[in-house]
C-alpha cells in the first residue's frame, strides 16, 4: 500500500508504494489508480501510475496539495476485478540498421550478441504500465544478466518501432521520440493508433507479450 505521500512541485501528489518492483506492488498501484479515476475528484486532472508510484496532478486553481492529500489519505480502495490478460506476439527485426545499441550492450553486459537475443526472445513479458510517449508499453522482467542502464545522454531521436532495454524492462517506441534506452531491434507493427479514441493502445497494463524475430525481408513486406 502507499508508504508515503509527498508533493511533486506545487500541483501534484507523489504517492510512493515503496522501492521494490514486482507484479503485486504494480497491481496495488493499478487498483489505487482505478479507484481514484472512478471517484472523479474535482480538480484532479491526471493520474500517472507506474511500477511502484502514482502521481496525481491537479489544477491549482481548484484544489491544493493539503486538501487533496486529505481526500487521498481517506480513500477506500475498491477491490476491482482481476486484471484481464491479453497475449501478444510482437515481430521484431534485429538487423544492424535497427539494433543501434547492440554493440554497446555487448560491452555493458559482457555478453555476446547471440546470447543477449536468445535470452530476450525466450521471455514472456508482463506489461506494467504505458506512457512516456503515447502507448509505449513498459514490459518486465528481463533476466538479471540483461539489465543495463540507460544511455548517459539520451538520443534526441529514437526511430519509431524501436525496441529498447533498460534495467529489468523492455519497451517499444510507438513513434519517433527522444529517449535513452538501449535499442536492440525494430517492429513494423503499429502499437498506438490515435484514430481509436476509446482504445488507442494495443498493449495495456497486465497484458502478456512475447517477441518473435523476423528477417529484413519480412520486415519490409510486413504491411503488404
Amino acid at each position, binding site marked *: 500500500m502507499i508508504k508515503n505521500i*509527498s*508533493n*511533486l*512541485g*506545487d*500541483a*501534484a501528489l*507523489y504517492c510512493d508504494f515503496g*522501492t521494490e*518492483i514486482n507484479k503485486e506492488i504494480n497491481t496495488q498501484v493499478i487498483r489505487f*489508480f482505478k479507484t481514484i479515476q472512478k471517484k472523479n475528484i474535482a480538480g484532479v*486532472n*491526471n*493520474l*500517472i*501510475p*507506474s*511500477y*511502484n*508510484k*502514482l*502521481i496525481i*496532478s491537479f489544477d*491549482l*486553481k481548484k484544489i*491544493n*496539495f493539503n486538501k487533496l492529500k486529505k481526500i487521498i489519505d481517506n480513500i477506500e480502495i475498491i477491490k476491482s476485478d482481476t486484471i484481464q490478460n491479453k497475449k501478444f506476439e510482437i515481430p521484431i527485426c534485429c538487423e544492424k540498421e535497427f539494433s543501434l545499441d547492440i554493440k554497446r550492450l555487448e560491452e555493458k553486459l559482457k555478453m555476446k550478441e547471440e546470447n543477449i537475443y536468445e535470452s530476450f526472445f525466450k521471455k514472456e513479458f508482463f506489461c506494467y*504500465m*504505458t*506512457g*512516456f*510517449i*503515447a*502507448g*509505449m508499453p*513498459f514490459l518486465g522482467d528481463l533476466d538479471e544478466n540483461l539489465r543495463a*542502464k*540507460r544511455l*548517459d*545522454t*539520451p538520443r*534526441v531521436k529514437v526511430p519509431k518501432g524501436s525496441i529498447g532495454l*533498460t*534495467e529489468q*524492462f523492455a519497451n517499444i517506441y*510507438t*513513434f*519517433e*521520440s*527522444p*529517449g*535513452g534506452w538501449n535499442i536492440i531491434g525494430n517492429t513494423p507493427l503499429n502499437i*498506438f493508433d*490515435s484514430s481509436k*479514441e476509446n482504445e*488507442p*493502445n494495443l498493449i495495456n497494463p497486465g497484458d502478456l507479450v512475447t517477441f518473435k524475430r523476423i528477417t529484413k525481408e519480412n520486415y519490409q513486406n510486413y504491411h503488404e
Partner: protein
Amino acid sequence: MNKNYFEILRAGINSTFQDLGRNNLYHIGIPFSGAMDNRNYLLANKLTGNDNNNPVIEFAYQGPHLKYHGKAINAAITGDVSFKIKKGNNLIDGECYQSFILENNDELDIISTNKSVYGYLAISGQFDLKLQWSSYSTNIKAKIGSNNGEKLSVNQKINIKEINQNLVSKKLNYINTKIENIRVMKGTNFDYFSEEGKKLFFGNEFKVSKLSDRMGMRLEGKKIENIVDTNIRSEGLIKGVIQVPADGNPIIMLSDHGTIGGYPKIGVVISADYDKLVQLTPGSTIKFQEVDLNSAETLFKLYDLETQNLISQI
C-alpha cells in the same frame, strides 16, 4: 454560402493549433499539450471576443504569413511579436494586444517573436478543426489533434467555420516582462546530488540549449554531480519537472513532454513561473531560485489574479 479561410503563404517554424490542452490521458502516455504560454493564449482569445477554450494558432520564432479570404473578421496577436498587415498596397506595422480587422485579400505576415519563443494569433471566429480527446491542441510528436497532428504547412488552407461579425476594437496595455530567475521547488530526488551539485543548481547560471522544443528545454552548465544513482525506476512526470541525466545537464519537461521518465528529479518549476520559462530563447541564461510549497501556492494565486485582472481590462 460564404467561405472564409486563410491561405498559408509561409508556414513559419512551428505553427500549431492550441487550446487549453487535454486532461486525464497521462496514463496512456498522452500529455496536456495546449498553449505553452497560458496567459498570452487567454489574452488573445479575450481580445477577439472568444471563450477561454477557443483554439488559436501558436507560433514559435518565425510565424506564418497568411492571406485572408472572406468576410471581415477581427484578429489579435499576443506575445512579443513583430508583424505586418498588408491591405492592398499599404503595409501597416502591427501592434500586439490590439485587435485589428482583416478583410478579403488582406495579408498578415508574422515576421518573428522578439527575444521570446511563442506568440498567439486569435480570430473572432472558429477555425474548422477536429476535436480529439476533448481538445483541438496539436501534438506533433504523437500526431494527435488538429490538422492531423501536423504543423501548418505552406499552401494549405485554414477554413473558418463560424465568424463573429462584431468588429469592436479591443486593446490592452501590457508588456511581457522577461525574467532569468525561475523559481523552483526541490524535487523528489534532490538528495541524489552532491552538496556541490545542489549549490550549483541553486546559484549557477545555465544556458538554454538549442535542443529545446514543446517537449522539453535542455540546459547546459557545470555538471551537476550525482552521488546516488543516475537512473531511477521509471515513474510519472508532470510539466515543469527538472530531470538530470548522467551527463549532469538539467532537462525541464514542457507541455508535450513524455509522461514517464527515469532520470532523477532535482526540482520542479513552480506553476506561477511556467509562462515565463517557456519564453526563454536558446542561448539565454537561467538561474534557479528555491521556494517552498506555501510560497509557490501564494505566488500562483498572485499570478492568477494578475491574469484575471488583465483579462478584465479588455
